[in-house]
């Protein structure tokens, strides 16, 4: 390797969701990954969560496939129980020293059977369950942990501390335990580093001594089916099921007295989620949430909040908690608080949950020292709004909660974005160190009688608490061709994958059925397992007995069990008729198309080009930059103009980018890897072939018609004010000594027609208000708000605004402010001040409306690309939590405002994230397309041609198939066929069918339904 060639591997520090996402993205796009984790297994805080908002997906269920993938990916080396102790070098060429702490259990030998932990005599507080349960001194963090290998807690092990015991070593059949193990120092070379060490939960909670006060993360464990109380809402003091529970918000957040002046961004939403889930577990519960502002600023969050209030009846109380005390006899908790009207009230609760904030990881200081990066004042990694993924050291990138508290989707976006940032400097080394996965030769099962294996999943208690799983197992054992049937706690866990492989070998199985959750999320995982066992992946079938059975028939366990039997039987019957399919290989045109030249699109295009791919950037307007052209200064007083100008210059001068301004998309056809787009501009039509599409079409400002807007020039929008504020000598009133501005928040957001929050308007108002005060301190500035949503470090500016004398008045959606003229034709804003509980009247020289963000008319592009939109018209990604830049249509990605309202730094991250996903696709010479496409039985086909008209994709042709006899038949173009089955459903000769869902398979399934 030459001096200047970068090294094609990357070090990732921290194995939470951020690190896992980056690892998988890097490995998929041709880089070798070292994933270093301090703890004994990967997964991070997300593995501790019960559910995730706003979809209420089970957290581990959506994380687990990624854990498993990370654990078995050929190009990801997991180095657990380890820390970085040395780091030197330059971007592209770093040397890293890693200390591997002794685990005392051999990773290679341990099979994860758990006999050691059953017999270990030492009980220790279980940190995974937040000390609400005990674990042993030899342990795995949780059942689905990756790697599923036990570790000995050297602090508590009797053998290691006192030289006594040694039971586990005697019991371990694999001989994996070695009490003499020593720490190991290893050295590796990498081209770039991603820091993803995550967060710490705020611990110095003053009331944690009370039995019935738990932290939100403890409550998360209480709600979890695999938690200390098996998912029953109980209070720790007496195991009683409480009725009245309270959540206290902002514990360890928005509090300068404890040096936590920032907002933790996630607590409002997780408290709402926990309240909803708790109520689902125990319908009689009466949750109350005590809060300052509800910060439901993310995509779809506001509707979730509304549902919590209206459908679940959760009580939200805007109130400052003064004190909480414990009733010594009943152990109830008494909360004293000041309500909205300033009165002190007292209320008794049986269980109180502290919504604890997020802190920088406790390793942040050490990371700073080892990697030589700067931290900001609270100890988070220092970044800035135009380079949110870059640390102060070149070649070292950051993502996730280490740079600022953030939620899972933003973390995932940043993690993919950081992959792009790393790939930009390592582009040339792509593929230099990666290995290709070798599968065992596929068994030819043609003609063999079906031998079916079945796993019925308990999914913790998600299925097992409703469906009688053992009886389903007994039932399927009686079915013909079933040679193996068993139950499992979590079928998606790594050890079960091994059991599946073993069962396939031991029982000579040639079909496999899993009855568990939805095939939409888990089918690929099991198919991969089948491939590793030498079976064609299409010999797998899934029965959905959770989402479509146990969860919807909770009140009817008997019916649910019967249905589960039926669903399993149907899947088994279908499986009997399954056959091997060969996926066909498709070429990839390694060029990208980016639609939209705003901040997100520019970043996507530039990043793709820097990674070595040709890109066409299409913009409908004459200028690039989109909405960022309208932003003159940011909250932290930077000018985005300089950043934008430089970015535009870089993009326009890049040899690999062709910029098409004033250009429309006329048509997009084709499919992943092989799109063909027709562009239309003044020069006429251009056809462009490309492998991936990034949709970054942006969004625009909502045009208000309320509050006298458009009728009086003294009513303007925030954006107009921002522009005016940059103009020299601008005055909105002749009276310099006494003037006033009233700002009204949530105009066109959080309304019936536009139910969601526009995320940026609170910060925008505060930004402008601060500038007004700076220019003229005598101006009175009032901000009329519903909730101030300055999340993360933006909270500092909210506090600054209050210190500067900006007056914040809260109003309720039901009592909106009135903007009217008084007798002297002054504008008068009337609003009810909740503190004095009276209507007040503000004479204002200027009324500024904080208008929301509105999506463009996206239907056309959505239709061309066959991707969905949300109800409010933004693009809808494949999964709001874990696939925030992808669509379910392969090869199509989304970034920026087209996805949802966001700040510049967030658009930059998402633009880069979309390009990482696109680059991963474009870096491949070919991809294998799904084998589930149509096939023609030549002998049956009469070449009538009716299928040709039915096919929406022009995938069918009539061709001569036998030159000698002149026999004609329909023929499928494999690249064009999408496998919809329209042809098969109408074929009068039964000659054409869709592999994977053949008529025969459907008949079998229908017949199994008793």
């Amino acid at each position: 390797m030459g001096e200047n060639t970068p090294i094609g591997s990357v070090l990732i520090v921290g194995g939470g969701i951020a690190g896992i996402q980056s690892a998988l993205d890097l490995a998929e796009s041709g880089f070798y990954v070292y994933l270093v984790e301090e703890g004994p297994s990967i997964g991070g805080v997300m593995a501790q969560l019960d559910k995730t908002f706003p979809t209420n997906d089970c957290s581990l269920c959506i994380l687990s496939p990624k854990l498993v993938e990370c654990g078995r990916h050929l190009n990801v080396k997991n180095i657990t129980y380890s820390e970085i102790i040395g780091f030197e070098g330059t971007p592209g060429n770093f040397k890293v020293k890693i200390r591997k702490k002794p685990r005392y259990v051999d990773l290679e030998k341990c099979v994860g059977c758990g006999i050691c932990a059953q017999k270990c005599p030492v009980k220790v507080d279980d940190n995974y369950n937040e000390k609400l349960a005990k674990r042993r001194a030899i342990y795995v963090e949780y059942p689905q942990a990756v790697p599923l290998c036990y570790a000995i807690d050297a602090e508590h092990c009797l053998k290691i501390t006192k030289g006594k015991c040694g039971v586990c070593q005697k019991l371990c059949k694999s001989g994996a335990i070695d009490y003499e193990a020593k720490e190991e120092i290893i050295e590796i070379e990498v081209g770039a580093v991603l820091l993803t060490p995550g967060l710490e939960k705020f611990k110095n909670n003053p009331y944690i001594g009370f039995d019935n006060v738990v932290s939100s993360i403890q409550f998360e464990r209480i709600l979890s089916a695999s938690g200390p109380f098996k998912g029953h809402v109980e209070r720790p003091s007496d195991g009683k099921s409480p009725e009245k529970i309270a959540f206290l918000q902002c514990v360890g957040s928005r509090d300068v007295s404890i040096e936590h002046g920032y907002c933790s961004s996630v607590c409002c939403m997780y408290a709402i989620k926990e309240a909803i889930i708790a109520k689902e577990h125990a319908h009689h519960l009466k949750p109350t949430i005590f809060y300052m502002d509800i910060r439901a600023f993310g995509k779809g969050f506001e509707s979730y909040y509304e549902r919590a209030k209206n459908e679940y009846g959760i009580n939200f109380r805007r109130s400052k908690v003064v004190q909480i005390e414990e009733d010594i006899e009943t152990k109830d908790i008494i909360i004293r608080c000041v309500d909205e009207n300033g009165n002190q009230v007292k209320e008794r609760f049986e269980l109180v949950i502290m919504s604890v904030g997020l802190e920088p990881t406790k390793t942040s200081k050490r990371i700073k020292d080892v990697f030589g990066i700067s931290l900001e004042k609270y100890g988070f990694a220092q970044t800035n709004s135009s380079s949110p993924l870059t640390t102060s050291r070149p070649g070292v990138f950051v993502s996730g909660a280490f740079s600022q508290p953030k939620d899972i989707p933003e973390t995932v976006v940043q993690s993919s974005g950081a992959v792009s940032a790393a790939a930009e400097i390592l582009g040339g080394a792509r593929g230099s160190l990666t290995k290709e996965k070798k599968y065992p030769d596929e068994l030819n099962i043609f003609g063999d009688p079906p031998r079916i294996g079945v796993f019925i999943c308990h999914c913790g208690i998600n299925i097992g608490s409703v469906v009688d799983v053992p009886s389903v197992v007994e039932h399927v054992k009686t079915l013909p061709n079933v040679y193996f049937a068993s139950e499992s706690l979590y079928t998606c866990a790594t050890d079960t994958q091994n059991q599946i492989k073993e069962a396939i070998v031991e029982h000579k199985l040639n079909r496999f059925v899993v009855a568990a959750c939805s095939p939409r999320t888990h089918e690929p995982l099991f198919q991969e397992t089948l491939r590793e066992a030498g079976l064609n992946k299409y010999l797998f079938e899934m029965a959905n007995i959770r989402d479509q059975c146990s969860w919807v028939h909770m009140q009817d366990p008997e019916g649910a069990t019967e249905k589960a039997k039926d669903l399993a039987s149907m899947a088994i019957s279908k499986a009997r008729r399954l056959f091997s399919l060969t996926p066909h290989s498709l070429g990839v045109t390694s060029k990208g198309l980016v639609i939209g030249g705003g901040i997100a699109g520019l970043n996507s295009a530039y990043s793709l080009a820097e990674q070595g791919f040709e890109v066409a950037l299409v913009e409908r307007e004459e200028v690039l930059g989109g909405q960022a052209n309208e932003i003159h200064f940011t909250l932290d007083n930077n000018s985005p103009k300089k950043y934008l100008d430089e970015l535009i210059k870089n993009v326009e001068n890049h040899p690999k980018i062709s910029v098409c301004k004033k250009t429309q998309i006329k048509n997009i056809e084709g499919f992943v890897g092989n799109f063909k787009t027709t562009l239309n501009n003044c020069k006429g039509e251009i056809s462009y072939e490309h492998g991936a599409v990034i949709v970054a079409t942006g969004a625009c400002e909502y045009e208000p018609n309320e509050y006298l807007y458009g009728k009086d020039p003294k009513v303007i929008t925030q954006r107009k004010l921002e522009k005016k504020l940059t103009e020299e000598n601008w005055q909105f009133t002749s009276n310099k000594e006494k003037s006033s501005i009233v700002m009204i928040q949530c105009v066109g957001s959080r309304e019936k027609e536009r139910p969601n929050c526009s995320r940026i308007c609170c910060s925008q108002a505060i930004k402008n208000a601060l500038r007004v005060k700076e220019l003229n301190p005598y101006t009175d500035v009032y901000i009329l708000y519903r909730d101030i949503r300055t999340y993360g470090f933006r909270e500092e500016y909210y506090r600054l605004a209050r210190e500067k004398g900006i007056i914040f008045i809260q109003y309720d959606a039901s009592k909106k402010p009135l903007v009217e003229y008084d007798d002297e034709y002054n504008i008068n804003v009337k609003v009810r001040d909740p503190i004095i509980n009276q209507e007040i009247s503000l004479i204002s020289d200027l009324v500024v409306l904080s208008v929301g963000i509105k999506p463009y008319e996206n239907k056309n592009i959505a239709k061309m690309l066959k991707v969905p939109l949300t109800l409010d018209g933004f693009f809808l990604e494949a999964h709001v939590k874990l696939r925030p830049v992808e669509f379910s249509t392969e090869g199509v990605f989304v970034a920026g405002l087209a996805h949802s309202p966001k700040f510049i730094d967030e658009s930059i991250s998402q633009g880069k994230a979309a390009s990482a996903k696109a680059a991963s696709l474009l870096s491949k010479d070919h991809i294998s397309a799904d084998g589930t496409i149509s096939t023609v039985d030549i002998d049956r086909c009469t070449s009538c041609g009716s299928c040709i008209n039915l096919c929406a994709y022009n995938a069918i042709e009539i061709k001569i198939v036998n030159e000698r006899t002149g026999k004609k038949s329909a023929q499928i173009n494999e690249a064009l066929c999408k496998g919809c089955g329209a042809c098969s459903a109408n074929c009068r000769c039964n000659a054409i069918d869709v592999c994977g869902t053949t008529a025969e398979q459907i008949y079998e399934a229908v017949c199994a339904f008793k």
Partner: protein
Amino acid sequence: MSDFEPKIITFCCNYCSYVAADTAGTRKEHYPANVELLRLPCSGKVDILYILEAFNKGVDGVLVTGCRKEQCHFMEGNYKAEAKVMFLKDILDEIGFGGNRLHVQFMSAGEPDEFVRAVTDMTARIKELGPNPVENKK
């Protein structure tokens, strides 16, 4: 016939109603347990023969679900499904079996309520109609 529990098969499109059904699960909605789902790549894959086979085997009702108009993942599979269902309903009426036992319903992936409503209504409708009249069910 108050204790009659009908058996209903729902053909689901992989891109809309199947997702809606999953989401109904995540939201812990409730619907009768006698509804079984069969996943197809598209509602346009539904063949009249599948429906007849189901009735022949004694299923009391068949519900075909697909994407909302103009939202079909495969352009117009849902229109094709609707045309077939309407055609078959007429035949079922004509032979005295009752076209009411067959129903087509469109919904998007984001409408779990619609799914729950469709299967709940279907169950109620079939309960009223009573068991499948086919003799010598196979």
